[in-house]
């Protein structure tokens, strides 16, 4: 008689699917923002050629990978990390923590302070990517939600905020 319920990894398919979708969108949005937003572009220019970073959930994903290709273009490179050399690896410790972050119940800074993430890679890279993610959040989310995600909601010109937002959404969905 087996009185102990077996616990298998890989449960919680709905939460995983939701996070996977969010990661996919964030990845494509970063690719778009690197073309549309001057600050994001500058952050990537300072990173080395071939720079690749991965954001995902421990232990088995989902993941998203963004990097600079040979022509220095910033590209969303899919969700498979196997066989890639990753310069900056940001892993959320578990799916529950990822849900808190991607349902914006917990801002990025607070999540970091609460030790929700394991970051592997050089610190200056992490600083740059966190700035990029913060800018991305301001573009993608309405102010009422983004204010909870970032420490300080920035004051941007109408053009940067609203026209930029439309361009980034459009590019993210179309994927170029």
């Amino acid at each position, binding site marked *: 008689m087996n009185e102990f319920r077996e616990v298998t990894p890989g449960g919680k398919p709905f939460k995983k699917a939701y996070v996977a979708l969010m990661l996919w969108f964030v990845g494509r949005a970063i690719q778009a923002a690197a073309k549309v937003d001057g600050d994001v572009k500058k952050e990537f220019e300072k990173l080395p050629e071939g720079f690749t970073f991965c954001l995902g959930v421990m232990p088995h994903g989902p993941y998203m990978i963004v990097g600079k290709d040979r022509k220095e273009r910033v590209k969303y490179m899919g969700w498979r990390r196997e066989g890639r050399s990753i310069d900056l690896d940001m892993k959320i410790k578990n799916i529950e923590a990822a849900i808190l972050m991607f349902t914006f119940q917990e801002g990025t*800074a*607070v999540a*970091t*302070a*609460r*030790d929700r993430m*394991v*970051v*592997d*890679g*050089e*610190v*200056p890279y*992490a*600083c*740059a990517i*966190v700035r990029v993610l913060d800018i991305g959040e301001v573009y993608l989310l309405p102010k009422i939600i983004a204010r909870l995600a*970032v*420490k*300080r909601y920035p*004051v941007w010109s109408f053009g940067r905020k609203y026209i930029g937002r439309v361009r980034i959404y459009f590019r993210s969905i179309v994927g170029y």
Partner: protein
Amino acid sequence: MYLPEYYEFCCRVKVISGHNALEKIPESLAKMHAARPLIITDKGVSEAGLVDIVLDAIRDEVAVGATADDVPQDSSLKVVNRLADVYRDNDCDSIIAVGGGSVMDTAKGVNIVVSENAHDLMKFSGAGALKRALKPLVVIPTTSGTGSEATLVAVVKDHERHLKMAFVSYFLLPDVAILDSRMTLTLPPFITAATAMDAMAHAVEAYTGLAKNPLSDASALAAISLISSNLMGVMENPSDREGRLALANAATLAGAAFSNSMVGVVHTLGHATGSVCGVPHGMCMAILLPYGLEYNMHKNAHFTEELLVPLAGAEVYAATPKHLRAEQVVAHIRKMNQDLHDATAGRHARFLGEVKDGGGRQVVPREKLEDIAEAALDDGSIFYNPEECDYEDFLMILRTAWEGTPLDRGLIKGV
């Protein structure tokens, strides 16, 4: 008291504090089944006679494998790898570190290499690279500042690649920290001042930062209280044994606090000022601490104001109206800097423009502030700072800290 929804705290370091704490080393080593330690220290410490005091205290019971006294001012990868060979060549089975932050970080690095039976420390950078306990490590701090005796990090510089590598693991927490008043009794006054203000900055930033938790808070409050009630006494009477021991305890408590709750913008700018202009870390901390508190005040005044109790006492706290308490904390720290400035005949600088080297030359030219702000963008300590800080914000703080005028809080973007 603030209780986060979730937090982690770990400080499994056995602390032995007393005027004769060194004599407890043999027993501590024996409990860890170690008998042949490698002593790691630097020239300054050994020339000051501190290693001899340690050796005298343990000689009868412990056979020291070797003593390496050539740790440079900055820890370095090369030295770590070389000392690992010294450890092996002399059949050592444990490490005793006698010194400041650089010595302790070097010892942690050596411990990684010898415990993993490797030859290059670099293989173990990155999160989760260490998977098991290391060799027994006893640390004896000889300054009361860095708190490395209670932290889980080791910062080691790779001078060839111009990189500062941070190794982070609970396995890097030393097994035993010995706080013995004899180790800091001869510390010169202006170094005593700067290192104590480093410990103060650890405690204050841990207490007012995003990763605060009740265990860190308790340590931080105790540290602040010990510093504020003992520092000036030690400045006036450097051979005050009780005061020295109190400061050593404060540094360890503050180390435990910031090892778990991290630091913020004061350290972000302090690291950058140190790397661009070579200003000693403790001096940066003393100068920048009031500015960091002012910069974050609109976010965390409710935490900052609580520090008035350990800083100035319950009577002052009660006599100060609530809305003025946080500002009073800043004023109190500025007053401490002024007192330290007076007590050191001006060697303890109050603002960045005032920092001078041994030859009386200005160490931070105003033109360097842009470079410092740029370097600060690469420092991870800003993640735990309550308020966002971009290049312009860094520069604004640096300019006022250079002049020595209080921060105009109306200019802060988030206010």
